[in-house]
């Protein structure tokens, strides 16, 4: 069986496969486990002995935690393919797959590999060594809906010109949209192990512990780990494009339970008895009324990413379970 790794694979298994290829040119192996695929991919085998890795389905189970950066993702909706309306025309829905090929959302035509692929000396390659020669065929149904002489932006789009196909070079296989750097950044962000902070607070949430009105309350992240306060880094690759991402905690917003919030730009400082009545240097609060308060903390992460000549920032928030503290007034306590 043949075994090799596509050029864009990114983990150690790719290196292993490359080594195998270098040693044997093609390494037979049909049994499961003959190759190890990177996360998000699985082994696939063809009837002529080729074994390689292919991407897993991207569908997410409804009750799965999507992770940071993917809050809005859910089960994949059925794909809808359209020619966007223009000049007041409505969108025109087309079949996503026809004998003319697979619909390309970016090129608005059906793409199909020229079969066989022309030799690299053909001018269609435009000097490229990689990529594919693809036929781009406009939707015949859409063309049929147009009247001869119809125009968009002053260009005639109806009639015979509409259905004319064009062969040309492109980087990706038909049906494979170019890698989206922002999507890769979301994948990288989602891959980070991020946990909400464990709340540290004085007065503590323990029987007999009572804070005082007008005295400082200290808040902090208890025993913070990198998963709770960062910083963390990750990268994600697809089709030769790699996006790197640096994530950190931007702020922790404390809901003090009395209708007010306190924003802290750091993990806070754990209270020690030696501090006495001092205020926290970086994350504190003063209650003005006695009572029992449910205090919660929300950690806001930001992640800066770069790749594919683009850059951007993603955000995510993580809520910690609330804790209850008691605040009393001094005269009440001394009676």
């Amino acid at each position, binding site marked *: 069986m043949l075994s090799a790794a596509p050029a864009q694979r990114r983990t150690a298994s790719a290196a292993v496969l490359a080594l195998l290829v270098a040693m044997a040119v093609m390494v037979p192996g049909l049994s499961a486990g003959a190759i190890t695929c990177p996360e998000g991919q699985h082994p*696939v085998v063809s009837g002529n002995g080729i074994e390689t890795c292919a991407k897993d389905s991207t569908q997410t189970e409804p009750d799965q935690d999507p992770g940071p950066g993917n809050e809005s993702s859910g089960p994949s909706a059925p794909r809808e393919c359209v020619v966007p309306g223009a000049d007041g025309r409505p969108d025109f829905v087309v079949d996503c797959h026809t004998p003319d090929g697979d619909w390309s959302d970016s090129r608005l035509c059906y793409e199909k590999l020229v079969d066989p692929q022309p030799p690299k000396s053909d001018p269609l390659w435009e000097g490229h060594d990689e990529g594919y020669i693809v036929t781009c065929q406009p939707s015949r149904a859409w063309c049929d809906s147009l009247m001869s002489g119809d125009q968009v932006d002053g260009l005639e789009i109806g009639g015979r010109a509409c259905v004319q196909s064009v062969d040309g070079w492109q980087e990706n296989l038909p049906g494979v949209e170019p890698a989206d750097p922002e999507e890769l950044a979301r994948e990288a962000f989602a891959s980070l192990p991020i946990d909400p902070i464990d709340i540290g607070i004085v007065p503590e949430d323990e029987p007999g512990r009572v804070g005082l009105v007008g005295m400082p309350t200290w808040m902090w992240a208890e025993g913070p780990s990198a998963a709770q306060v960062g910083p963390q880094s990750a990268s994600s690759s697809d089709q030769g494009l790699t996006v790197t991402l640096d994530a950190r905690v931007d702020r922790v917003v404390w809901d003090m339970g009395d209708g007010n919030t306190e924003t802290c730009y750091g993990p806070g400082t754990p209270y020690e008895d030696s501090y006495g009545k001092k205020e926290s240097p970086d994350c504190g609060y003063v209650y003005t009324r006695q009572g029992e308060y449910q205090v919660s903390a929300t950690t806001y992460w930001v992640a800066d990413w770069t790749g594919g000549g683009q850059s951007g920032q993603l955000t995510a928030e993580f809520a910690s379970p609330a804790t209850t503290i008691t605040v009393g007034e001094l005269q009440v306590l001394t009676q």
Partner: protein
Amino acid sequence: MRRTRTAGVALLALAVAGSAAACADDDAGAATLARLQASASASPSLSDEEQEKQRVVEEAEEFLAEFQQAEVDAGNDGFTGWPTLANEYWSSALAEGFVPVYQEAAAKGQYTTGASELESSEVTDYVAEEPGHEQVAFTSCLDTSSLHLHQKDGSEIPLPNERERSVVVHRLVHQGEGNSWRVTESTPQDGSC
């Protein structure tokens, strides 16, 4: 592209739905896998739903056989026929995985002789939530004992293991009314058949 079926395809059609991907040496009679599976119940006549399932499974079964032959042809033709597989059979995810490997093999002049055969096949999943977009998964026994791989100079590339029969799961998804099927999964399984 040749569409001639191999003996393995005939065996596929005759395979009995028994243990998962058991290699069938038996003469199972002149009934297709789909018919056998659909008639497994005691019901003397099939409901409309069962008839539709039988029709879909038969269609998928035929497509799987064509796909298997197309793969064999591509290997025998020096792996240059990958555009046909990408245009007509593979899902985009499978194409992404396979095409670079086929391209590399073709560029090096490598080729196959002989053929692998789908010895037996069992329908292990059927999803028909949306008409025209049915999914059928087959767990098959792939016999590669007569498949040989060669370098450009004709020298044979030795196989790293002695397993000549393997279990493979193929999943086929129909692409909508008026369209064909696509193979979205072609996954080797642990164990042999």
